[in-house]
C-alpha cells in the first residue's frame, strides 16, 4: 500500500469516530499546551530578569561580604563607610562607587502607610545604577554629608502614600522619624515577583542613624571599562580582605549574576516542563488505550483487509499512522492553545511569557513521537491478527 493511501485511511478512521478522536486528543492537547505555556513563562521570566539585570547599568561590579553562591546564607556585613572610602581610592573615582544599607520599614504619610524597603545610599546611586526620576530631585552630597532627613520615593510608595497629591515637598515618617520627600522614581515594574518600585532612598548616613548601625550591606562599583572589570574586582576584594582579615568578600559582575539566575530559572523551567511532560505521557497512554479499543472494534475490517491482500505491515502502518495522526493533530492543537494562552497571559498579566520556536518544535516532535511509541503495540497487535479469526469476530 502506498503511504499516501495509508494516511488517507488513517484520517478516515479518525473522522469516523470524531468525538472519540477528539477526546483522545484532549490528553495530548493539554499536555502539549502546558509544556508550551510553562516553557514560555520560564523563558519570558528569564528574558525579563536578564533585561533587568542589564538595565541596572553597564559594567557593574557588586561587592558583598561572604561568598555569592546559590543557597549560601548572606553573611553579616563588617563593612563601614571607611571601607567605602578605601574602595573609592582603589577605583580612583568616588563617583563610581555606590553603597546600600537596606531594611524593611513602615513609611507613613498622614493616615496612609506602606511597608517598603528603605535603602540608605550615596548621592552617586543614579550614576552607578540606571535610575530615573519622575519628579523632584535625587539626594545630593550635602544631603549625605549632613545626614539630612530627605527621601526619594519609589513609584509604588508614592502611589500608596500620596494617591492624589504630588509627594514632593510632603512629609513622611520612616519608623517614626520624619523625612521630607524630595523626589519620586520613575516606575521599574516587577522582577521575580518583587515590586522594584516599593523602595525609598534616604542618605546612607541618615539610614545608619535610623537603624543605629555603622554597617554597609554592599558596595557597587561602575567599572571604567569592561575588559579590566575582573581585575578591578580582584583589587577591591584584596583591599577589603586586608582591612578585614578573616572575612571573605566577593565581587561579582552582571554576567555572573545572570549566569546564576539563568541556572536557577533554567532548572525551574526544566522541572515545570517535565511535570507538564508527564501529562503528555498520560495523554499518550490514553492514545494507546483507544488504539487498542479501535483494533478490537475493527477486527473484522482488519480480517477483511488481510483477506483481500493487506500484509501485516500494511495493517500495522495503518494503525500506527492513526495513532501518530491523533497525537500530531493533538500536538498542533495543543501548540496553538499553548501559544494563544501564553500570549494572552503575557498581555493581560504581569507574568512574562516568550514563545520560542525550539519549544514548539520540541512539543510537536514529542507528540508525534508519543504517537509512535504508544501506537506501536496496538499496531503490532492489529498486524498480527489471524485473518480467519478476525473475520469471524463480532
Amino acid at each position: 500500500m502506498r503511504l499516501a493511501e495509508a494516511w488517507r485511511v488513517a484520517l478516515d478512521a479518525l473522522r469516523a469516530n470524531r468525538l472519540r478522536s477528539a477526546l483522545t486528543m484532549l490528553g495530548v492537547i493539554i499536555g502539549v499546551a502546558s509544556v508550551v505555556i510553562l516553557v514560555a513563562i520560564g523563558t519570558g521570566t528569564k528574558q525579563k530578569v536578564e533585561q533587568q539585570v542589564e538595565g541596572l547599568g553597564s559594567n557593574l561590579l557588586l561587592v558583598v561580604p561572604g561568598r555569592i553562591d546559590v543557597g549560601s546564607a548572606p553573611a553579616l556585613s563588617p563593612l563601614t563607610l571607611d571601607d567605602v572610602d578605601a574602595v573609592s581610592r582603589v577605583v580612583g573615582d568616588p563617583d563610581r562607587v555606590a553603597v546600600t544599607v537596606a531594611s524593611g520599614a513602615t513609611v507613613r504619610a498622614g493616615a496612609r502607610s506602606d511597608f517598603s524597603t528603605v535603602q540608605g545610599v550615596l548621592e552617586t546611586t543614579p550614576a552607578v545604577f540606571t535610575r530615573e526620576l519622575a519628579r523632584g530631585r535625587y539626594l545630593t552630597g550635602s544631603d549625605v554629608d549632613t545626614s539630612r532627613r530627605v527621601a526619594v520615593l519609589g513609584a509604588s510608595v508614592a502611589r500608596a502614600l500620596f494617591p492624589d497629591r504630588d509627594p514632593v515637598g510632603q512629609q513622611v515618617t520612616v519608623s517614626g522619624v520624619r523625612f521630607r520627600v524630595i523626589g519620586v522614581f520613575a516606575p521599574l515594574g516587577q522582577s521575580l515577583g518583587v515590586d522594584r518600585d516599593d523602595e525609598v532612598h534616604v542618605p546612607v548616613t541618615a539610614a545608619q542613624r535610623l537603624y543605629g548601625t555603622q554597617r554597609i550591606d554592599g558596595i557597587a562599583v561602575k567599572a571604567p571599562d569592561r575588559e579590566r572589570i575582573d581585575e578591578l574586582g580582584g583589587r577591591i576584594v584584596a583591599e577589603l580582605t586586608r582591612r578585614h582579615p578573616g572575612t571573605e568578600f566577593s565581587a561579582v559582575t552582571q554576567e555572573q549574576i545572570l549566569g546564576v539566575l539563568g541556572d536557577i530559572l533554567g532548572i525551574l523551567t526544566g522541572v515545570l516542563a517535565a511535570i507538564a511532560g508527564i501529562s503528555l505521557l498520560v495523554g499518550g497512554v490514553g492514545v494507546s488505550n483507544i488504539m487498542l479499543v479501535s483494533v478490537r472494534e475493527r477486527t473484522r475490517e482488519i480480517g477483511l483487509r488481510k483477506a483481500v491482500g493487506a500484509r501485516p505491515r500494511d495493517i500495522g502502518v495503518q494503525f500506527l499512522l492513526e495513532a501518530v495522526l491523533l497525537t500530531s493533530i493533538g500536538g498542533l492543537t495543543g501548540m496553538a492553545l499553548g501559544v494563544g494562552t501564553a500570549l494572552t497571559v503575557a498581555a493581560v498579566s504581569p507574568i512574562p511569557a516568550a514563545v520560542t520556536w525550539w519549544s514548539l518544535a520540541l512539543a510537536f516532535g514529542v507528540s508525534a513521537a508519543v504517537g509512535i511509541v504508544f501506537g506501536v503495540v496496538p499496531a503490532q497487535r492489529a498486524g498480527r491478527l489471524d485473518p480467519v479469526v478476525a473475520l469471524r469476530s463480532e
Partner: protein
Amino acid sequence: MTAPAIEAVDVSRTYQLDGVSVPALRGVSLTVAPGDYVALVGPSGSGKSTLMHLLGGLDRPTGGRLAIGGREVGSLSPGELAALRNETIGFVFQAFHLLPRTSAVDNVALPLVYRGVGARQRRERAAAMLGRVGLGHRLDHRPNQLSGGEQQRVAIARALVTDPTVLLADEPTGNLDSVTGAAVLELLERLNAESGVALVMVTHDHEVAARARRRIAMRDGVVVADSADERHDPPVSAGTGRPDTLVPAPSAESRSASGSGPGHPSGGTGGAAGATGRRAGEGPAGDAPAVPADEEAVP
C-alpha cells in the same frame, strides 16, 4: 492440461483448543483447475470453511502440502502470502464483509489499494467491475444503502476486481432469500463462464450443488466424494487458452453435453441459457457469432 490453480496434497488442519487438538481437516487432497466450477458440500462442521480458508491462503495447513498458483504456502512469509492472496484469490463471504461508511466503488477498489494501484485507475477498474455485476448505477452507495443481494454483488465485484484465478465463495447465498440468492448464483456462474475464473463454492443447497460442474462432498474433515474422480470429466476450460469473451460458448456447450447430473432441473438449464443469452448480448458484436462456429468445427 494446464497447471492447477490450487493443489492440496494430504492437507490437514488441527486447531488447538485449550490444549485439546481438534482436527478440522484430516488429509484432504484435491486440485482446482483454472476455470473449474466446484461445489463443496457437507454437513455442518465437516470442515468446508476450514478448507476454503486454506485454499485461499488465509490460513496455513498443519500438515500436508498446499500450493496456490504453483507456490508452496508453507514457504511463504505472511506478507508474501498476503500478496499471493491479492494476486490469485478472490473471496466471497456469507456475511458480505463490506466496509461500512465506504462507498460501493471504494469497497470494490480495496484489493487494488494493496496492489499499489493509483486512485484514479482504482476507481475506473472498480466502476467497470461494478458495471459487470449490474451495479453501475450504485457506485457511491454505502453498504447500508444497498439490499442484501446488491451488497453481495458488491462483494463479488471486489473479489474479481484483481482478476484472480480462483474465486472462493463460502455460502455466498446463505444470507439471502431464495430469489436474490438465485440471482447471485447466476451472476457467479456467468462470471465463472465469462472470465474463466475458477469458482469454488460452499453450499448447503443440493439444487445449487447439482448445477456445478464438479461436486466435492466432505464429512468429518475428509473428502468423501469428488465427482471429478468418478467421471473424469476434463475441466471444460482446459486447453482453451482463450480470451475472456470466447469462454462462454464452450462452457455452455459442454455443460449441456454432460447434462446427466442428478436431476438437472429444467429451471437450471433455463438459468444457464439465460446467462448465455446475456453473455452473447454483452460480448463484442464481432466475436459472438464466431464462437459457436469454431466450436462446431472442432468435433
